[in-house]
């Protein structure tokens, strides 16, 4: 990967044993827009702020929540361009698995392969780590699942998690509100309330995005009209 001039790793150990490039990547994630996810008893919801730089930007041209497969979706906090690269690679990996095994890829496998890519960029020559953390939401034979993957390539399964600017407030809020037997619609309401906690300005269907997957195993991004309905219910 890269020119031979740069066939040495740019991410190297500091004298105290830290990989500082990864820490800086996490700082980049921490200054990104807030995103969060909740696992309900019958599905998963992920959501994010969608604050655009100007009213001149056509918000319909931007979609932060992306499908990886029909039953797995993902959202990020951090650097948008890096996210696109990971989405592309993950989609390809999912397709290759499907072609080989004639079965949709399990959520854990896809998360592991994506995390491997992110780890490789912390060790390979001439590249920097990805400046994104991912929340991967899926529903397969093992039920609803939510994973968070960090720039280091480490991943964990979460009942609920948040990332980005407002992470500590959001996590505190989620810890209070989360219950294991929550249903998907409740989870969506809780997700909206959590986003609202640290939201600068007025929350609306134009400046947030919500994606959900239920027992039907179809991941869907909600339309602005549907988000409006949920916002009205929350009021």
């Amino acid at each position, binding site marked *: *990967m*890269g*020119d031979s*001039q*740069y066939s*040495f790793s*740019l*991410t*190297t150990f*500091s004298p105290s044993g830290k990989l*500082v*490039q990864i820490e*800086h*990547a*996490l*700082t*980049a*994630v*921490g*200054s990104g827009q807030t995103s969060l996810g909740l696992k309900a008893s019958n599905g998963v919801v992920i959501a994010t702020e969608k604050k*655009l730089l*100007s*009213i*001149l*930007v*056509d918000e*319909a*041209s*931007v979609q932060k929540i992306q499908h990886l497969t029909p039953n797995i979706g993902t959202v990020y906090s951090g*650097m*948008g*361009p*890096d996210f*696109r*690269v990971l989405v*592309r690679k993950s989609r390809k990996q999912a397709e290759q698995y499907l072609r080989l095994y004639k079965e949709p890829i399990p959520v854990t496998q896809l998360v592991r392969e994506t995390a491997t890519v992110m780890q490789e*960029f912390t060790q390979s020559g*001439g*590249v*920097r*780590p*990805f*400046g994104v953390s991912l929340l991967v939401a899926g529903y397969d034979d093992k039920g609803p699942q939510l994973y968070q993957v960090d720039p280091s390539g480490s991943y964990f399964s979460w009942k609920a998690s948040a990332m980005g600017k407002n992470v500590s407030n959001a996590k505190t809020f989620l810890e209070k509100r989360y219950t294991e037997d929550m249903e998907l619609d409740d989870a969506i309401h809780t997700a909206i309330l959590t986003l609202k906690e640290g939201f600068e300005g007025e929350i609306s269907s134009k400046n947030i995005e919500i994606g959900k997957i239920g027992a039907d195993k179809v991941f869907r991004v909600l339309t602005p009209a549907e988000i409006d309905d949920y916002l009205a219910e929350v009021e």
Partner: protein
Amino acid sequence: MSRGSGGGYDRHITIFSPEGRLFQVEYAFKAVKAAGITSIGVRGKDSVCVVTQKKVPDKLLDQSSVTHLFPVTKYLGLLATGITADSRSLVTQARNEAAEFRFQYGYEMPADILAKWIADKSQVYTQHAYMRPLGVVAMVLGIDEERGPLLYKCDPAGHFYGHKATSAGVKEQEAINFLEKKMKENPAFTYDETVQTAISALQSVLQEDFKATEIEVGVVRADNRIFRSLETEEIEEHLTAISERD
């Protein structure tokens, strides 16, 4: 060779600074402004117009060879603001990519797909140390069969968004403020209104009245999808219409 991160190399190649920033990418944005021109793009109801300054630094230069407006295909235009050499490299690659797309898939490359391709290429330069980011902001315009007029802007960081109107270059922020006011009520501009909004935005932020030879204007229209650069006479007509309106 000394290793990066803390060794001061975060300013020389695209690795993270302690605050999680990519200095090389930020410097690439500065290089776009250092080129000294401002560009504007406006999307109307059924047309898209881009305008940029045409500064010919030397009277001995062949004026027709000084351009920032490039056809990528018959139907897609690209306005490149920033370092001229980087712009030409980008346009050449974009032309190749669009031609291959047409060959592979059997239909014309849409503006948003081209914008994504440019942005993804720019992202690679922000992550791999061996290539620096390009000092170019590219505006891609075209009429899409299904979605109508499209205007996309791609920057050195690898971001790309669709815009109702946008700007790049020296007076980018002033122009965006001007355009936000004009587009606030989501007006549906006709072709003439689109062109005149773009030109008058440029005149307003640069605080000068242009001659037709001092600006370049590129358009695509729903009733004539071919991307073309306006002739001097046509620019003249629009300039006259603007001054009569005021």
